[in-house]
């Protein structure tokens, strides 16, 4: 069965419409159910003592006094936890040479970053558990720290894990073409060093877990704020020595994640281990301070980039040398080499050139571990690429739009393989740029800029074309040995009242997964969207799947839901045809009714069909299939990833006396293939842009030379707030993937991928008459003034 999604007048046309999310109503009523809202009988709370040193030998942990604190029930050291929980090593076979050390849920012998758990106190309340922490007498032997990634590989630098032999965890060099020759003979070569600030996700709901172990059933049930319940099921089973079938992960409402909650965290695994040891429910909810110190960080990169262009502005080659520090461990199980690997994969991605060299060097350091965070590697690669393209344009006297026009991969050139060997099925860089220029009214904007400059007001326009990797196949993780499903499934069931329940392996963290699925299932089956209930986030009831990350929910989970919905419709029509003595081909389901396909005349409501099937099956023909449940799975296979594309523009004003930046407006045109719900997609883009703005202007985990995180609180770590954010205009070009009927690619990371580059280029456009340039994020007022020479470097 198929469906004409391109025809807006088709029946049941929910796909493509801005339908409000069905789960929004409970959230505005304060009736969401997040992990911390769940209370179980005999529940206890755990809090963790965290290393105050970036690198230290743990000499002794005396828990005697802590055990005397009112409310404290038990105290666990690393050795205690290690008896119930095996350590892990986060490597992937396809990332050749990647190495990491065994990591314990609670540190044993050595602490390697400020914030690493070194002991756990279980008490009858969180407050009492913290009282217990305060009473632990822990002694450490502080060791020399590794904080500067530039010197992490130097001969005199201490080894964080001596057994690894060095502090290098991964290196990859990609070369295509005669790079040195091209650079040697190029008309112009421009180069720059870029830095992206180490930052973190700051989910408003902190990481949260409630683990309950039933000894009589041998069953671990985990309420978890996570993006990947099935992956966590595997992890808990493996490291707590339980059969996978005896682990159930339930994921209710999740208060934001953005990649932060797709990783394995030592304190969360320790919580589950303690539940197993104690045989009772144990809750851990990170507070804000420990969130900053123990959530994964990301984007700690320094990149040297060079671009070679000819006289006409054609890009000839790109040469990228990326260095990133990932903390003391590669993060389990996705590893911390992916971000650097993405920088190699994505630099230059929008452009038509074939000579490319890129190297990433991934080193260990005594800071919080880094791992995949929204738009993994994209903001870095886009900033470097777009920064270099703008600099090349400046060197050639070209308008930034013109150099992009001359170099973006032509819209009719697909399929296209990039210099990084990424395969693109179909992108729309030029159509997107055209649309963006119309939206921003480029000429008027330049005129406004010129007029402002006459008044001494420095405004800038910045562009950023980008690609986004979505819908990953097993080539992302599975091929490397990680038990992370690239396939996803959906089971759709019709109940006697004609309503439909759909269970999906992808998960909801606020982006609208359940709304999107409800629309697709409603259209697939042919019922009003109000008749569809969605169930996600329960390993015991949903089809096995990967969850929601890498912008895979709509493209993969959505296609499985569409196919399952259509399959259920076929099953319904077989039964209806028998009841109505018609051919299934002559019937259809629309708006909850079996209808005549040709005339659209209603023949029978679905609740009547349900009544007969479930309660008067005796009246149906013997042997008639009566399956009102259908399950379908989907996995991408033609391409390892479904790439999307887009372009952003920023208009801003720089106060050159103070270095302050005022964002005036922001635009994005993006192409995520089939848009299922325009409103939800636009809101993904807007939220993503603001997260990108955070990285560009505000957010940075500031460490001192001893590895102390200096701004581990929300007053000092600056996140974007409403007053400073611009209004954002979003537009779309739709190039559906032909791999699936739905045609959807991902949309969750495009905003974050492009925004920092657009902001950077806009700042530099504003500063250009003053011969100043910034390339180090975040672009703080002080860095602006330093670039201007107003204050000394």
């Amino acid at each position: 069965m198929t469906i004409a999604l391109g025809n807006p007048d088709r029946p049941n046309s929910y796909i493509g419409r801005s339908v409000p999310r069905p789960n929004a109503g409970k959230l505005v009523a304060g009736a969401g159910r997040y992990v911390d809202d769940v209370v179980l009988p005999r529940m206890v709370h755990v809090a963790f003592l965290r290393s105050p040193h970036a690198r230290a030998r743990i000499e002794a942990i005396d828990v005697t006094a802590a055990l005397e604190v009112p409310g404290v029930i038990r105290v666990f050291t690393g050795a205690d936890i290690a008896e119930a929980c095996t350590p892990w090593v986060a490597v992937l076979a396809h990332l050749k040479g990647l190495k990491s050390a065994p990591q314990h849920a609670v540190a044993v012998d050595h602490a390697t970053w400020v914030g690493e758990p070194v002991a756990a106190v279980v008490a009858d309340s969180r407050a009492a558990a913290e009282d217990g922490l305060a009473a632990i007498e822990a002694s450490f032997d502080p060791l020399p720290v590794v904080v500067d990634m530039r010197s992490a590989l130097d001969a005199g630098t201490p080894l964080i894990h001596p057994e690894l032999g060095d502090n290098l965890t991964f290196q990859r060099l990609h070369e295509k073409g005669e790079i040195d020759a091209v650079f040697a003979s190029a008309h112009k070569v421009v180069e720059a060093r870029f830095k992206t600030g180490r930052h973190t996700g700051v989910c408003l709901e902190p990481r949260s877990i409630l683990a309950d172990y039933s000894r009589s059933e041998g069953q671990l049930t985990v309420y978890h704020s996570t993006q990947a319940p099935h992956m966590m099921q595997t992890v808990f089973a493996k490291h707590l020595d339980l059969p996978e079938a005896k682990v159930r992960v339930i994921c209710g409402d999740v208060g934001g994640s953005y990649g932060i909650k797709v990783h394995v965290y030592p304190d969360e695994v320790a919580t589950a281990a303690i539940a197993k040891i104690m045989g009772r429910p144990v809750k851990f909810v990170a507070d804000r301070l420990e969130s900053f110190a123990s959530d994964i960080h990301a984007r700690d990169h320094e990149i040297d980039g060079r671009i070679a262009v000819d006289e006409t502005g054609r890009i000839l080659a790109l040469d990228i040398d990326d260095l990133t520090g990932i903390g003391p461990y590669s993060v389990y199980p996705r590893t911390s080499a992916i971000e650097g690997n993405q920088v190699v994969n994505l630099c230059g991605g929008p452009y038509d050139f074939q000579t490319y060299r890129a190297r990433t060097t991934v080193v260990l350091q005594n800071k919080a571990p880094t791992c995949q965070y929204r738009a993994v590697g994209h903001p870095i690669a886009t900033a470097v690429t777009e920064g270099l393209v703008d600099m090349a344009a400046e060197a050639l006297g070209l308008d930034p739009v013109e150099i992009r026009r001359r170099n973006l991969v032509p819209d009719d050139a697909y399929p296209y393989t990039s210099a990084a060997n990424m395969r693109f099925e179909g992108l729309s860089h030029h159509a997107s740029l055209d649309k963006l220029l119309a939206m921003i009214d480029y000429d008027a904007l330049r005129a406004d800029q010129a007029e402002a400059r006459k008044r001494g007001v420095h405004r800038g326009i910045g562009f950023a074309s980008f690609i986004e990797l979505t819908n990953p196949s097993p080539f992302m993780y599975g091929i490397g040995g990680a038990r992370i499903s690239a396939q996803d499934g959906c089971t759709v069931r019709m109940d006697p009242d004609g309503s439909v329940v759909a269970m999906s392996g992808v998960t909801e963290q606020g982006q609208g997964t359940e709304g999107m699925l409800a629309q697709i299932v409603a259209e697939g089956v042919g019922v009003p969207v109000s008749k569809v209930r969605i169930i996600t986030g329960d390993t015991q009831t949903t089809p096995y799947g990967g969850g929601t990350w890498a912008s895979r929910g709509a493209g993969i989970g959505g296609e499985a839901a569409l196919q399952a919905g259509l399959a259920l419709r076929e099953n319904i029509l077989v039964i209806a045809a028998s009841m109505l003595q018609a051919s299934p081909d002559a019937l259809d389901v629309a708006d909850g009714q079996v209808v005549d396909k040709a005339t659209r005349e209603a023949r029978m409501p679905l609740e009547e069909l349900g009544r007969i099937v479930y309660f008067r099956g005796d009246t149906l023909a013997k042997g008639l299939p009566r399956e009102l449940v259908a399950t379908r799975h989907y996995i991408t296979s033609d391409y390892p990833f479904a790439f999307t594309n887009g372009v952003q523009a920023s208009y801003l004003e720089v106060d050159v006396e103070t270095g302050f930046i005022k964002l005036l407006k922001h635009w994005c045109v993006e192409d995520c293939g089939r848009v299922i719900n325009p409103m939800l997609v636009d809101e993904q883009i807007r939220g993503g842009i603001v997260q990108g703005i955070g990285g560009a202007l505000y957010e940075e985990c500031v460490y001192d030379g001893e590895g102390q995180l200096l701004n581990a609180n929300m007053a000092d770590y600056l996140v974007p707030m409403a007053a400073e954010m611009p209004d954002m205009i979003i537009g779309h070009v739709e190039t559906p993937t032909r791999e699936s009927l739905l045609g959807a690619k991902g949309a969750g990371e495009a905003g974050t991928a492009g925004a920092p580059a657009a902001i950077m280029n806009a700042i530099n456009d504003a500063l250009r008459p003053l011969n100043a340039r910034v390339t180090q994020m975040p672009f703080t007022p002080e860095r602006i003034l330093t670039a201007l020479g107003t204050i000394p470097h």
Partner: protein
Amino acid sequence: MTAPFSQSVEISLKVNGERVRRMVDARRHLIDFLRLDLGLTGSHAGCEQGVCGACTVRVDGTIVRGCLTLAAQLDGADVWTVEGVTETGEIADLQDEFVARNALQCGYCTPGMLLTAAELLNADAAPARAHIREHISGNYCRCTGYEAIVDAIEATTARRCGMPVPALKEAAE
């Protein structure tokens, strides 16, 4: 005077219009009191430092940070949470606009955001967008980028003032 300081305090107050009497730990802040003692889990603690605004609730007619208010201080107070104002229907129009414009994603900031926004609803004139942004500038939302929230508040205030209501945003086609 002997030991005037107590570690637990009896308080009588009204929460969402209902009388409540409890012994509370002096160290318990209002959000933990609401969540743990009364089961009102709609209010959230996001930073416990007064910065993020997730804990914003209404005490004696004005919004406060629930994490910076001790329950012990609230003897005789009149406290309203998102559950209460939902029940009375006081902000039903605002909640409808939040849903219609997708002014929430994960929903964790939403209760605090709604109570903060509610202070603007009974103004004589519809506030400008910049004023709305300033008013909610103490409420952190990581998901939306704020624009839809501003839209929803703008639409609700406009409707209450009898002004034209801005249309739902559609992508530039």
